[in-house]
């Protein structure tokens, strides 16, 4: 069976700098894959390449048996790849519900929805992420965790089969992270494959089947969360000795 998502030699340069240098990996359908690595390793650039924001300088990306590299972002979205952005930019003067409906109206992998159907679907995704009680509020009054939830809802509203999450748990405390992990599990249980970028190891350990580590635009390591967090190269480049010591003392591997 062909992999659900396949990257082959993906290369992206900005000026003379290779932000991504021949990165290749496959994601089977149904997986939750974690993408970690130092700031500047190329993780967000990689999501931008998959979602069509950047054009590749070399390599190719295919999704569900079809080549998607070279397609514009809206076509990638309509093929079934939803994503969130690190810096959330909701429509500030609109309500939570209207923001979610925008995803359903313009990005849906189904044929363009009528407004009524879009709002019905928006209500469902808001229910899923726990924002239903705040559907009528304007987004300006939302706390940070709620804004992140809305970002996930907007992406889900496009009815993706593959969801790319870019640091949706940053700024959450450990207990808030646990609540957010429940949402990720529910989304995944609904049949959606997930690729997520996180610096919060509690997330990586909590939900990822497999983790890929990028460093300076290149593939550094791969394995289960447990394997990767004990990998010397990963500790040196990314986690730091203190993290490793703390994790070894036990109980705090999920430092939030």
């Amino acid at each position, binding site marked *: 069976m062909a992999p659900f998502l396949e990257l082959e030699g993906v290369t992206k340069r900005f000026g003379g700098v290779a932000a991504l240098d021949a990165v290749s990996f496959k994601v089977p359908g149904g997986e939750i894959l974690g993408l970690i690595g130092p*700031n500047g390793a190329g993780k967000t650039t990689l999501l931008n390449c998959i979602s069509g924001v950047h054009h590749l300088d070399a390599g190719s990306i295919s999704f569900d048996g079809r080549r998607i590299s070279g397609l514009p972002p809206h076509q990638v979205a309509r093929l079934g790849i939803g994503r969130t952005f690190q810096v959330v930019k909701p429509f500030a003067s609109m309500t939570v519900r209207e923001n979610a409906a925008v995803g359903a109206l313009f990005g849906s992998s189904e044929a363009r929805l009528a407004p009524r159907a879009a709002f019905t679907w928006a209500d469902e995704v808001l229910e899923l992420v726990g924002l239903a009680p705040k559907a009528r509020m304007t987004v300006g009054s939302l*706390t940070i*965790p709620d804004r992140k939830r809305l970002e996930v809802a907007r992406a889900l509203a496009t009815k993706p089969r593959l969801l790319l999450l870019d640091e949706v748990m940053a700024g959450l*405390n450990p*207990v808030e992270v646990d609540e957010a992990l429940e949402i990720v599990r529910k989304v995944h249980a609904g049949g959606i494959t997930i690729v997520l970028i996180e610096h919060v*190891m509690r997330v990586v350990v909590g939900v990822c089947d497999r983790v890929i580590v990028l460093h300076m635009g290149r593939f550094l390591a791969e394995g289960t969360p447990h394997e990767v967090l004990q990998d010397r190269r990963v500790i040196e480049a*990314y986690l730091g000795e203190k993290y490793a010591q703390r994790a070894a003392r036990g109980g705090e591997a999920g*430092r939030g």
Partner: protein
Amino acid sequence: MADAPPLLEVRGLTAGYGAGPVLFGVDLEVRGGELLALIGANGAGKSTLLGVLSGLLPPTAGSVRFGGRDLTGARPERVVRAGMAHVPQGRRLFATMTVRQNLVLGAYLRRDREVRSDLDRVTGYFPALADKLERVAGTLSGGEQQMVAIGRGLMGRPQLLLIDEPSLGLAPKVVETVVEVCRSINRDGVAVLLVEQDVVLALEAADRGYVLENGRIALSGTARELQDDPAVRKAYLGV
């Protein structure tokens, strides 16, 4: 020096944004030279409290005394002049200006000639910035931008540095570096009020801490006491 008056003394502070208060009668003290952690859920009012302290938001009741002076409702420039600097959440650098320009702006109110040697002091704390002073700030990595933001705060020669969520979006190793530098700044005599969602790390670094819940101080104590407190462990550490 148990009898020395606190550096910062907040009494009955109430503040909000129009739709009703966010902070309800907050009492809090920072002693000279200590590292204090302020923890609490998102929406509890932590950043609002920092905003009131640094003069960005006027309180509706209560008082703020700093270094023996009344700073209740004082404008930000007076607060900075009095010796309190705010390192805001999300860095808030001037992205199109150089690192040097961003740092020098932190000394905007100063008229002395020691700004240059203070730049050296900042790069002493953050050697990674030393050869990046002429780089445009927006092109730096998230960790380096956080270092510039803290450095900018230091350039005002504060007695108290308010640091809001320095770990946001940073790799674990970089978080360690940033927190380590907060500690050395503190060891060099600057009091630090640290707001941080990485509660484990915050309480490891701090001398004392306060827990803010729904705009009220729910608990305070030494960092050790808070680390061992069952309610804190359950509500904030998730263990």
